[in-house]
């Protein structure tokens, strides 16, 4: 019997922040498109100036970049949501003492733990990806309907189907690449969530800080901090020819190809550190399953 769908539904019922927070951002973004000055001063770029400076490719670059901005906002929000979800996912059922109810049903601990990992790494990002895609379409629909007759808009931003397909195909692939990259972070949080008797947040945040400080005091080095910072964010500077990921790459872009390259995380699949992280994650998840399985909850 395939229990995975209902296990995932349980997570969505229990942790409503998973869908409420992204949905709130999406609604807010669409509402912004109705503001009177939208499209005149978008993203801090003066539309008239942009129109004057316009190269033939520029309207498509802006069109692509606008979608990446929203995706960036969603990524930031999603990492916050995922952080709190992962901290709570194996702790909440122990805190409200419902764990024995879940354990009274024929669902193995392996299935339960893996379903939670899957929610954080695939279901949430995939949901956010689809939401961002729909939100962008809605926003374009509104903007083009409102300002479609204004020639300034056309020279500022132009719908381009090929660019749209290419960008969104890349962003979809990124979901899976990032799932691999962030797997050890998620697994580590889940281990703490399954293990900590209380104060999951402190157990998540304090040990790295203590490690960083201790290393600095004892050896005078900063390797721990660098490894952490690299895994959590600065790895993007190794993408797109060291111009980074997303808009930071786009900002220095000279053409559409450069902008799209900034949305391409596929090169990470060739990095050894990606696969080392996956191996670490597997070990941590194994430990998490054993804790949920064998810990006496009374």
């Amino acid at each position, binding site marked *: *019997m395939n*229990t995975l*769908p*209902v*296990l995932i*539904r*349980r997570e969505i*019922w*229990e942790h409503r922040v998973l869908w409420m927070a992204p949905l709130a951002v999406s609604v807010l973004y669409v509402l912004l498109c109705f503001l009177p000055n939208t499209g005149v001063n978008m993203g801090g770029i003066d539309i008239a100036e942009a129109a004057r400076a316009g190269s033939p490719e520029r309207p498509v670059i802006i069109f692509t970049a606008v979608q990446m901005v929203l995706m960036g906002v969603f990524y930031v929000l999603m990492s916050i949501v995922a952080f709190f979800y992962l901290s709570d996912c194996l702790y909440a*059922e122990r805190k*409200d*003492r*419902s764990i*024995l*109810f879940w*354990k*009274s*049903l*024929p*669902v*193995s601990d392996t299935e339960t733990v893996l379903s939670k990992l899957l929610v954080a790494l695939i279901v949430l990002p995939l949901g956010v990806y689809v939401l961002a895609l729909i939100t962008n379409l809605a926003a374009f629909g509104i903007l083009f309907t409102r300002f479609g007759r204004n020639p300034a808009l056309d020279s500022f931003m132009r719908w381009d189907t090929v660019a749209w397909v290419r960008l969104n195909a890349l962003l979809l692939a990124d979901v899976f690449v990032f799932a691999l990259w962030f797997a050890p972070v998620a697994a580590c949080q889940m281990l703490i969530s399954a293990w900590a008797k209380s104060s999951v947040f402190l157990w998540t945040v304090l040990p790295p800080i203590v490690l960083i400080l201790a290393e600095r005091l004892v050896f005078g080095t900063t390797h721990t901090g660098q490894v952490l910072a690299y895994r959590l964010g600065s790895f993007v500077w190794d993408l797109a020819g060291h111009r980074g990921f997303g808009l930071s790459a786009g900002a220095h872009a000279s053409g559409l190809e450069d902008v799209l390259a900034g949305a391409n995380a596929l090169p990470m699949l060739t990095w050894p550190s990606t696969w080392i992280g996956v191996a670490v994650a597997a070990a941590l998840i194994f430990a998490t399953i054993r804790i949920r*399985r*064998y810990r*006496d*909850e*009374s």
Partner: protein
Amino acid sequence: MTTVIEARGLTKSFGATRALDGIDFSVEAGRIVGLIGPNGAGKTTALKAILGLTPFEGDLSVLGKNPYSQRDAVMRDVCFIADVAVLPKWLRVSQALDFVAGVHPRFERSRAEEFLRKTDIKMKSHVRELSKGMVTQLHLALILAIDARLLVLDEPTLGLDLLYRRQFYDTLLNDYFDKERTILLTTHQVEEIENLLTDVIFINRGHIALDSAVEGLATRYVQVNVKPDQAVRARELKPFYEREIFGRVAMFFEDRSTDELVPFGEIRTPSIADLFVAKMQGAPA
């Protein structure tokens, strides 16, 4: 007759104290067994071992499997309501049905819905909106709709009023129990389940104090309400427990023929509750 639970030398220690001290017992299919004992006797520990929730020493097999190492397989045929197995507050009634239907191959949703229709529970309600009695009804509705071979109930009616308790056990007996199913339960309210049980196991300080079919109790145990002037002579037959009631001395005898005892006073079959008290207080400390 198939054996559902078989324990040999079942032992569980917490540091220096032995919650279960090498106990032997077995539970046959189609029985309703009451595991009865004072607080801290080892009841819950025994149930947790049976449910694969705690490691143990000795031999224990549930439906032919080791419940600890083969828990996932055992749980396909076993259901339980533990007094601490709380339904999560955020869960809706309809979601509870969806979830169990989604994970349990032998859950019959229509049965649960039919049971819930007889209650005041609404499908859209969250568990947090239900009273304690209604939460237990919901839990019972889920369990009753599962075709399990062994049902384990640990203080299922704790904190419920008499009406809910009576309804709980009536439903269990009338709508659930049959010869294929086995129920193992613990409760402090022994009087209420006396007529329900087919077997009793008394457990005290990690040892089995009594393990018997209920129909066998009447031939083994006799309560005699002895007139005070007969008390000294009756004591020569070594009652294992006595107490005063209304000017008579109620003496409890084990394996004595009624013929021997008739001269001393009114002969009765002790209730399980009385027998429990007698066994617990008469037991050597």
